[in-house]
């Protein structure tokens, strides 16, 4: 028996560049913290190690040494985001080389490709498909008692050379989520560095804010064409028909814990209903309890003024922003791709209202949307420029090429969305990130062409947008301060 029962490893994504290795996508899914805490409370010792952070601190870091020293019974590797496809498997392989520990993967990407992963990679013993709380407890219990795992809910496992699925299913309810604590970041080694870097990849740059992701609920009520976390994906992977929320009391508890950890800004990215009834309750609680923290609130649809005023009086204004992703400057393209639709005029009116209410906004656009031509993208360029020149309270604006997300509507229904898929299986994602980690150019980065644009055009359009925005901001800085 080793020092910990369950070791959670977060893979990170390595990209080799001319300047050496860069670690990308630093964030750890909040579910990992909840799982580690849940296991601890059920009597199992756990540890979370962020392999990417370790390598940032020490380029010679070897995770093997830690695994050998801890001798865990089970190693959990999150494969929620597709960008970790290669590094998650590489880690699993590393575990197998140095211990007899069992390896379990979880998260949306692992869930969606569970069968293929287990058929192709011997280093992975199990995949938990969908919600993992009860399955994780039952899995470690079975392993510690050396009993059969076939009864563990949501488990996909190997029996001989066959890949099998457990017959038992588990779908977390709001009540189940309320039993979780998602704010014990101290379970992660180097957590204090993590909260500084969660959105940045540079250890050395001094940040004003520290950030923690808040777990508010699961699911979505709509289907954006490009989103791997859309309603369709939740139905298919989890069996969840509609979004569920934790209780405002539990979320407020996590906010309090964040404040006590010195986290200055809560990243709040769960907004599946336009009425936002949940948030009015939560905000009232936060105010009542005097929790002093900022919020980067990502809205999925436009809000009314009431909501903005309520947000403003609840959170510390230092880092509080409202973040929205209009994705495009073309109403036609937005209608075709976004689950929550609004036109440009409504967006501009909303920004105007934000300016009046003195709330800063962050905006994100994308290239590679369905139905987008170069001409339509020019509308994105124009809208971005106009917004930047009109609203000083827009504090961030950028454009990124869309990557193909597993289980997104366009992945599942490429014809409907005018997409030509280049990635169809897990191995396509795996190989792409392997190429990037090794410093070679993958045949495809985004995983698709659209009916009007090829990959390089899609990438080029985003760069053009960011160049224009960059030069406006640079000019602004110079003129602002020359007096």
């Amino acid at each position, binding site marked *: 028996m080793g020092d910990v029962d369950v070791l959670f490893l977060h893979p990170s994504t390595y990209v080799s560049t001319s300047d050496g290795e860069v670690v990308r996508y630093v964030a750890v899914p909040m579910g990992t913290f909840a799982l580690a805490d849940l296991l601890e409370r059920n009597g199992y010792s756990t540890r979370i190690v962020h392999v990417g952070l370790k390598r940032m601190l020490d380029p010679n870091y070897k995770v093997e040494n830690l695994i050998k020293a801890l001798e865990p019974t089970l190693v959990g590797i999150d494969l929620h985001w597709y960008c970790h496809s290669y590094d998650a498997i590489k880690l699993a392989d590393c575990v197998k080389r140095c211990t007899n520990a069992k390896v379990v993967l979880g998260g949306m990407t692992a869930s969606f490709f569970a069968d293929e992963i287990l058929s192709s990679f011997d280093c992975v013993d199990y995949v938990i498909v969908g919600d993992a709380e009860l399955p994780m407890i039952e899995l470690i219990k079975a392993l510690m008692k050396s009993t059969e795992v076939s009864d563990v809910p949501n488990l996909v496992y190997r029996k001989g050379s066959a890949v099998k699925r457990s017959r038992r299913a588990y779908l977390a309810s709001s009540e189940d989520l309320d039993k979780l604590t998602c704010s014990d970041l101290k379970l992660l080694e180097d957590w204090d560095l993590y909260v500084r870097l969660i959105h940045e990849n540079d250890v050395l740059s001094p*940040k004003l*804010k520290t950030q923690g992701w808040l777990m508010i609920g699961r699911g979505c009520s709509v289907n954006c064409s490009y989103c791997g976390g859309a309603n369709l994906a939740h139905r298919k992977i989890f069996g969840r028909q509609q979004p569920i929320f934790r209780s405002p009391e539990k979320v407020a508890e996590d906010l309090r814990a964040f404040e006590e950890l*010195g986290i*200055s800004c809560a990243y709040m990215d769960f907004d599946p209903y336009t009425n936002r009834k949940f948030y009015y309750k939560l905000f009232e609680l936060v105010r009542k309890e005097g929790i002093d923290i900022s919020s980067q609130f990502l809205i999925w649809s436009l809000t009314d003024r009431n909501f903005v005023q309520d947000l403003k009086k609840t959170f510390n*204004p230092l880092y509080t922003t409202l973040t929205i992703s209009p994705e495009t400057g073309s109403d036609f393209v937005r209608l075709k791709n976004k689950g929550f639709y609004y036109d440009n005029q409504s967006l501009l009116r909303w920004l105007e209202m934000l300016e009046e209410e003195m709330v800063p906004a962050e905006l994100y656009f994308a290239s590679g949307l369905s139905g987008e031509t170069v001409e339509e993208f020019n509308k994105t360029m124009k809208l971005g420029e106009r917004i930047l020149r009109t609203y000083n309270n827009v504090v961030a604006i950028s454009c990124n090429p869309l990557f193909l997300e597993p289980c997104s509507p366009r992945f599942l229904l490429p014809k409907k969305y005018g997409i030509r898929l280049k990635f169809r299986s897990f191995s396509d994602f795996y190989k792409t990130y392997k190429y990037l980690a090794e410093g070679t150019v993958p045949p495809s980065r985004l995983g698709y062409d659209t009916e009007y644009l090829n990959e390089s055009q899609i990438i080029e359009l985003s760069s053009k947008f960011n160049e224009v925005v960059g030069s406006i901001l640079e000019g602004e*800085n110079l003129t602002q301060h*020359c007096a």
Partner: protein
Amino acid sequence: MEFKIEARMPPRLFSKVSLVYSGIGLRYFHTGFIPSGLMHLGKWVWRFYPLTLVRLDKTQEQHEEVLFSFCFIYQSINGKRFFVTQPITFVDDIREGFEFFIENIEDFAKEACLNGVDIELHQVLDEYVSYPTSYTCISYDLSSISCNHDVFVEQLRSMGYKEYVKVWTYGIAPLDDDEQTVCLQDVSPESVSRMFIYENLFSYRSWTLPTLEHGLKPFGTPQIAKFASRDGLTEAAFILRPDLLEFAKKYRTPIPQLYQKTLGKYPFSNLKVVMWLAKDIDTLLASLKKLIHSETLKGFKRTEIAGVEDRLEEVKRALSGVGFRPACYTTILSKELV
């Protein structure tokens, strides 16, 4: 007791004291990272260091924020240096922590091969000091904090720091014009700045942070720039700024300049002469009187003049003579590291 320094600016700071950030990258501030840096010895170094001193209680696994200071690297006339703005304290007993804080800053500055460390400390003498309260890009509402000027000065002296400069700010309520002979003319702020940098015919001038790098000194639109002339000859020049702290407090924002529409209509009460130069003291006084009188007519109730160096005894005497009262003074203490 164990301490550590973390690069972050706690939200608690903003709950404790209203502040205005007016440096480079105004838009970036809220996102939590100001992407500004400079080349130093062939390497890229980051510009801003928001430093929080934390006291650790290992037995209870707790930490407590003790002190915060917004710091930056700048190119001064004395080489590249580390500038430490007024430390804001969260606890009463700060001596032990402050020494640790400064020692660590010195170690950092030495490692980065910087020439020295400068520390700005304020001593408040009046009820209120208007924006900018600092000679840098971060200004605090000094009436809501305790600056601990004398405690810090004493401690820094014992650590080898010497006074580099002491600068006064004076304030006055409405002032009579009594028919001054100078003529005021609106000009661009750039023309005053240019005159400030290149013109050395003016014997009297305000003290500013000795750097030409942009985005480190206080800034704030709207701003007023004036030339004062006699017989067609420019004899004095001024840049004035309304009190952004009033706005910051009312609307709870650290960056009023992101809201120009509301800012443009805001009825400010206080105004500050932040940059000035004059051929002689008579001209300075005559122009100031005229200036304050005309701004009073526009609704300003109080005017301050900053940047009065302690050594300018005649200016200080003259200001007192017409009714200006000291609002605060700022001491900058320095230590050379090479």
